[in-house]
């Protein structure tokens, strides 16, 4: 009597929810949300980016509740996001004004303002640090004190100057055509669903909300062979940018009247690709084009991958799935892809019964063609 299993759903769900709570707490130790916020910066940044909700504390709570599963944490935050009214749109954020914590260029050694390594695992050796097994809060405090002492021996730098963009240098040198400012009011795919062909703002929004792994894999496909281009990191910067909103009662034209509401940490990647540009009399010359990536938090792989995909989607060669807008943009969202995968676990008794009916019918109605008929058809097809 297999059917009974799907009845009594109410009780089964209640018991299942108890089981999941048991799994989270069975070792008698629960995570403190502030500790998650303090020590899981990488996961928090990834989850804020995929959820497109910038709030470290809520991300930490989601991580706790989801027992660290990124797809589940993103799901929780997205669902919470649905309950929030959208009261304001911010003014455009200018990454030139970024309080830079890290900034590198793979194109030029000596960029104006210099390379700033900042916090990065890039040159760490991936050896498990067994000392961390027994690290205490006191250890951390001691280390911080020593570190502060080290910093104290440097003179106060004052407010760092705005760093020039590597792109500006290329434009100055005539190696890149200065892209015109596009001040079209951006679309918002969370308020009006995406349309095809997608606008640039729709593309960038879907990419920045994309699942980190998916964005990375598809960009990897681009540079490995599906629409080959070998991009160079023109500039990668990580830092904080101010966010302002217009005075709700004002005209919204004067930036001076806007309100500063806080800052967000972002990663920005400007990827350079060489491209042929037509010259007079059928000649061609090479020039640089840009692919743009920007995401919440320090998510460098994702920002670089986003830059590659942005450029790829601008090409639109239908031979490559990675240049097909619908192929890329419809399939990289974490909540959508994981949701549809998990729906396969739902009962499909009715639909399957219907399919079974079809299958049975074909077994009785299909008559195998006689041998000589098949030969005849083959002959005709030649």
């Amino acid at each position: 009597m297999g059917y009974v299993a799907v009845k009594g759903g109410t009780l089964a769900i209640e018991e299942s929810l108890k089981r999941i709570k048991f799994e989270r707490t069975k070792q008698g130790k629960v995570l403190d949300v502030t500790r998650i916020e303090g020590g899981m910066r990488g996961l928090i940044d990834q989850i804020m980016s995929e959820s497109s909700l910038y709030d470290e504390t809520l991300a930490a709570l989601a991580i706790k509740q989801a027992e660290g599963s990124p797809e589940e944490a993103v799901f929780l935050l997205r669902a919470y996001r649905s309950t929030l009214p959208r009261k304001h749109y911010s003014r455009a954020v200018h990454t030139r004004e970024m309080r830079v914590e890290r900034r590198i260029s793979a194109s030029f050694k000596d960029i104006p303002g210099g390379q700033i390594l900042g916090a990065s695992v890039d040159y760490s050796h991936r050896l498990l640090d067994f000392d961390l097994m027994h690290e205490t809060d006191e250890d951390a405090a001691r280390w911080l004190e020593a570190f502060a002492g080290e910093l104290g021996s440097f003179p106060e730098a004052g407010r760092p100057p705005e760093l020039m963009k590597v792109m500006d240098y290329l434009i100055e040198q005539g190696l890149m055509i200065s892209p015109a400012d596009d001040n079209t009011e951006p679309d918002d795919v969370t308020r009006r669903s995406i349309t095809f062909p997608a606008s640039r703002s729709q593309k960038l929004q879907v990419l920045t909300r994309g699942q980190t792994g998916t964005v990375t894999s598809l960009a990897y496909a681009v540079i490995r062979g599906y629409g080959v281009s070998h991009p160079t990191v023109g500039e990668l910067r990580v830092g904080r940018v101010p966010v302002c909103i217009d005075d709700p009662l004002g005209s919204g034209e004067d930036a001076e009247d806007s309100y500063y509401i806080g800052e967000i940490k972002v990663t920005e990647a400007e990827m350079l690709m060489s491209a042929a540009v037509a010259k007079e009399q059928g000649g061609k010359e090479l020039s640089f084009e840009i692919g743009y990536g920007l995401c919440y938090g320090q998510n460098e792989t994702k920002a670089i991958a986003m830059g590659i995909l942005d450029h790829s989607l601008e090409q639109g060669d239908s031979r490559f799935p990675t240049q097909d807008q619908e192929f890329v943009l419809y399939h990289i969202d974490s909540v959508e892809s994981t949701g549809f995968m998990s729906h396969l676990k739902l009962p499909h008794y009715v639909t399957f019964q219907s399919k079974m009916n079809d299958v049975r019918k074909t077994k009785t109605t299909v008559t195998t063609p006689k041998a000589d008929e098949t030969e005849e058809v083959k002959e005709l097809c030649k």
Partner: protein
Amino acid sequence: MQINYNFAFFDESSKREIRRATLKAIAVPGYQVPFASREMPIARGWGTGGLQLTLSLVGLDDIVKVIDQGSDESVNAVSIKKLVQNTTDIRTTDETAKATLIQSRHRVPEIPLRAGQILVLQVPMPEPLRMYEPREAETKKLHAEKEYSGAWLMLFEQIMNYGSMTTGADHPVMVHDRYVMAPSPIPKFDNAKLNSSEALILLGAGREKKIYAVPPYTKVVSLDFEDYPFETESFEDRSCRLCGSTGVFMDELYDDASGTAYFQCNDTSYCLERMNEQSWREGAESR
């Protein structure tokens, strides 16, 4: 930090936006209206389209029924019902006739729906042409131009290959002589119930971000050919083991003990009502 949710989960402007899309869908029967589908507290693919419709429509006087593949007690139906109830505190029921709003996954109830009721169907794949055209930009054009030869060709090829149409559930229908529509994967058996329905039928696809509708008394015809007429699933000579019904959609079940298949109404609340009626009648007769 304690957060209380708004009535019916959404903020009011989200509800209004979904209702606007719904009104447009009712005005253009069978046409898929895009809407900015929200992420829900249940997974994409688990009925988020239907749930958004339900939550945007419920008021305090509504009585909600939720069915999943015919069953009110199925885990997902219970889960959705619980969410609606937790965020609205309105009444729920298993009885089709008592409900004002029925959210269903892949079935139209056996008891005929009446005027004033709303049936919300959950839709995984709203695009009937997706099978042969993966691009949304293209299928939009095909609908605009009423260019449906691909849909007919698809059925024709099935007949050539298998001797019959093998669409399973979700056999495409023509709505109001204008739009070819995916009836959501309801079995072919239920297609006829969409035609000239007294109740309003709304279809919501959350992941694919579309809402569409079959307003009351709209003509809905399953696609077929003169020489290969549309055929529903057949349960000929079968009757429900529990209530004895015939002519309803049935689940085929396997009895471990005897090693044989038996049949049972798929619509569990219909089956229960029939059984209750029978025992009441028997009781009355013996008195």
